[in-house]
């Protein structure tokens, strides 16, 4: 079986979705952990130092390229698969099945993924592009200059509409993960029922905790819960 045959088959495409999905999930763990430093309530010292550490490590910078590739591969493949699957039924049912047997969010993964992608474009515009390309105002910590990403967060999340868009993005992420977490493992061939129950429960907890933590960041800043 040629590589091209493998990756263009319906199962191969799902393998790519599952693999990139789990890779992106692993990134979320690092991202949420780093961002949680804002709750140290030290005026962003720990957060700015942590962000500087991540930004200055060569390995992390190389992985960042892989991360971007992963995001685009996951997004493009997902959109193509959604479009291809949609075309498999030209005439729909007069009485649709609705939520019988499948939760609504599992059937709307394409839409949820698109909302997350749109959110990411705003997120990159707010933080990633200033951090990597256009520059961020500096702050001195222990007489050393650091990019004041904490200050940028405070400024960005001073607008209610930005906070609302971020919270909506996190809600989309939560539902996307609730289906994507366990489906990714199944797409990679995990079929042991005992472990799949654990994976499903871990996935649900992960989806709520990680997305909830992300959503609380702009809310905390807007409501002045961090200083």
């Amino acid at each position, binding site marked *: *079986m040629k590589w091209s045959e493998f990756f263009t088959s319906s199962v*191969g495409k799902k393998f790519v979705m599952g693999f990139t999905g789990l890779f992106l999930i692993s990134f979320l763990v690092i991202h949420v952990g780093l961002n949680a430093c804002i709750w140290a309530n030290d005026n962003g010292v720990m957060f700015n130092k942590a962000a500087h550490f991540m930004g200055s490590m060569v390995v992390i910078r190389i992985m960042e390229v892989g991360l971007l590739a992963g995001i685009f591969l996951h997004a493009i493949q997902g959109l193509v698969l959604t479009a*291809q*699957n949609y075309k498999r*039924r030209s005439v*729909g049912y007069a009485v649709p099945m609705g939520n*019988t*047997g499948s939760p609504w969010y599992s059937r709307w993964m394409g839409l949820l993924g698109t909302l997350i992608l749109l959110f990411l474009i705003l997120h990159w515009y707010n933080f990633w592009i200033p951090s990597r390309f256009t520059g961020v105002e500096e702050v001195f910590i222990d007489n050393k200059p650091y990019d004041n990403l904490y200050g940028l967060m405070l400024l960005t999340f001073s607008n209610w509409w930005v906070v609302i868009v971020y919270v909506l993005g996190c809600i989309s992420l939560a539902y996307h993960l609730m*289906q994507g977490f366990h489906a990714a493992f199944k797409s990679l061939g995990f079929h042991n029922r005992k472990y*799949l129950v654990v994976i499903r429960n871990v996935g649900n907890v992960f989806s709520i905790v990680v997305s909830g933590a992300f959503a609380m960041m702009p809310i905390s800043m807007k409501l002045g819960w961090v200083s």
Partner: protein
Amino acid sequence: MEHYNMNLTLKVWRQQNTRTAGRFETYKVSEVSSEMSFLEMIDVLNERLTSEGKEPIAFDHDCREGICGSCAMYINGRPHGPWHANTTCQLHMRAYKDGDTIVVEPWRANAFPVIKDLMVDRSAFDRIVQAGGYISVNTGNAVDANAVAVEKEKADESFANAMCIACGACVAACKNSSAMLFMSAKVAHLSLLPQGAPERNTRVVNMVAQMDKEGFGSCTFQGACESVCPKEIKITSIARLHGEYLSAGLTSNK
């Protein structure tokens, strides 16, 4: 259970052939016995239509015992009707009450084109099985059943998957019109047994290639297929198929 009669309104999809557009026809059916099966109720309606000089409703049926997988009807938004783990032929009219409206549609999937009314062409399933859903057996005397030991758990799992009757409800229920539950049942049934081992890799590769060629969608693990399967094939069989395919694809020399 107490017997009762009911009057029903049926909205049935009528379509002359694959090329023509279809439409819903409404029929009033009176004095339907709660003891009838759903297909018997259609039979009664068809007798009336025939006596009125109208064309009867075309539908697939054969064993009427829930084991052949012929009776394919999407009833009120659910393949095989409202009962769990049930085929249309085993659905009885006691599931309904007087005055109910029942909407009956054929399986909807481009890979299952409508032949006429409620009959769809499911020969795509046959071609998928022909592509690899079998084991090759040498001719000669049958080997003693106990000659090859099979672990009990695997034998049970294999048998559970062999229960698939290829009715196509999984395709009908799936948002993507995916045939993965059907195909995974065939793959799991054979790959769990020692007799299926020699063709294990080629089987899954060839069956997936044929499935893609037939125009079925891919699996997104939503679970609708599992919820309507009359034989309760588990979605974990699809995960097993993914594993088989990855193993075959990543270990092949070519």
